[in-house]
């Protein structure tokens, strides 16, 4: 293992975060606070408790997940897309590093950023509502697993994308709708039975449900199913990344 190289890529990517601190950390915090004001305060005052939890507190896990998914994805996608775009990828490709080390560096940095962001949002949220976390270890586990999975997904998108438009399409047109419809702001159980069934096709439902269970001990689907599905997504992204490096797809001609 070339740990020095992993560390070099990781530090490089983290330095990028600190250079763009407004965009990377502050803007998601502001937008989350706005969600809180609009959904939590304005709408929440008209909604009764959900599963014994006040609406304001109920949406906290969903809000964290929403940011986590978007940030893991876009950070990792940008991280690998940009060297491709500027041409500096030549150095990564010609260095004595294996694919797994490249992934560790880029995905590790993207996941670190989004986990830090998730925790910042958690702290921000605690200023608005009373929070308690029933299973903190599981909460962290879901946070890490989701961040890593979506950073991997973002890494794949960054390699696939051959223009800035493609880079934006997946987060905007797929992940955001799935997160909104995946129970960020409501419980799936609040839907008519037919739409409950349809929702189960949405992978984000399992992530949010598992994460919310870690907070409040209640969930839309069983925790084992949530964890299982999260691991399945992780395995799928791993398989895709393995394929990419084995074939050099979109990286090497």
């Amino acid at each position: 293992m070339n740990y020095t190289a992993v560390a070099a890529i990781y530090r490089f990517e983290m330095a990028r975060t600190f250079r763009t601190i407004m965009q990377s950390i502050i803007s998601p915090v502001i937008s989350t606070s706005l969600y809180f004001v609009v959904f939590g305060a304005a709408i929440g005052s008209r909604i009764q408790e959900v599963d014994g939890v006040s609406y304001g507190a109920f949406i906290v896990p969903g809000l964290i997940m929403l940011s986590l998914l978007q940030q893991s994805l876009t950070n990792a996608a940008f991280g690998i897309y940009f060297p491709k775009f500027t041409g500096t990828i030549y150095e990564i490709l010609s260095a004595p590093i294996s694919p797994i080390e490249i992934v560790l560096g880029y995905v590790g940095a993207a996941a670190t950023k989004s986990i830090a962001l998730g925790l910042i949002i958690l702290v921000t949220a605690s200023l608005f509502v009373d929070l308690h976390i029933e299973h903190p270890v599981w909460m962290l586990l879901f946070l890490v697993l989701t961040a890593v999975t979506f950073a991997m997904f973002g890494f794949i998108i960054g390699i696939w994308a051959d223009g800035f438009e493609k880079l934006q399409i997946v987060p905007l047109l797929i992940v955001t709708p799935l997160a909104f419809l995946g129970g960020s702001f409501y419980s799936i159980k609040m839907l008519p039975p037919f739409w409950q069934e349809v929702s189960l096709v949405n992978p984000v439902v399992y992530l949010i449900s598992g994460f919310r269970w870690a907070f409040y001990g209640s969930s839309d689907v069983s925790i084992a199913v949530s964890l299982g599905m999260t691991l399945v997504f992780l395995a799928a992204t791993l398989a895709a990344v393995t394929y990419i490096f084995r074939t050099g797809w979109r990286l090497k001609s």
Partner: protein
Amino acid sequence: MPVSPPAPPILSVANVSKTYEGGFQALKAIDLEIARGEIFALLGPNGAGKTTLISIICGIVNLSSGKVTVDGHDIGRDFRLARSKIGLVPQELTTDAFESVWDTVSFSRGLFGKKKDPAHVEKVLRDLSLWEKRDNKIMTLSGGMKRRVLIAKALSHEPELLFLDEPTAGVDVALRREMWEVVRKLREAGVTIILTTHYIEEAEMMADRIGVISRGELILVEEKAELMRKLGHKELTLQLMEPLERMPAGFTEFDLALSPDGRSLTYSYDTNAERTGIASLMRRLAEEGIRLRDLSTKQSTLEEIFVNLVEERV
């Protein structure tokens, strides 16, 4: 006395071909061995396959068939060992924009698995006159400075084999001379250098051996001196004390030309021929009472040789 076996080549390219997805064959069965410590210039017109060959060796492009080893390590199977010996300065000015010079050069060192060594990075930056700019963002540098940054990045991890792909393209004369100086120092330090260039003068000045690639084929690999000797011909110019009105009779066996002003004679000869004929020409001139003021010889340049070679093929 025991004879030591010849040192193994630092780079060995055996039967390497490359066909791109669209069916374009960029390289056709290239065979090439580079000895440790030499400077090898790869010449060829645009699109001949120079960059493709370099990219394959460095791991940026996959080869279609053949085998490449760097210091005995296969670039596929032992890619770590092979690549750790290589430094690459690409043709395009592909740099980060927002990083500082110091950070980007240190990053390259880390990427190649080398432990931090600020003293070495400082030396590289000083050698390339980048030390004053170490805290500048790369985007604020001129094109020539960016080119130096790319060289600094490649040297940061102490490569044994350095690829310079068009290192002086778009670089002004002063900087070009500085770069040649850098190359000379590297050679003294024992680094093997493979360079591609459009400036044939550069190859002529720097290289020990020259390879000419055209349409994906390596059409010639030769010691520079040998190449110049083989393919070049020489001209001997004789300045005369008294101008001649016409070519004197009795010189028909010599390829002689009289200048329009009658003040000089030019004799073309083949350096490869068994006899150059210079001695007998001189003798004949003395016999005819033609006295000389001065004489000079001119060798055909590598550029002339190169153009002839490539044109022959087309």
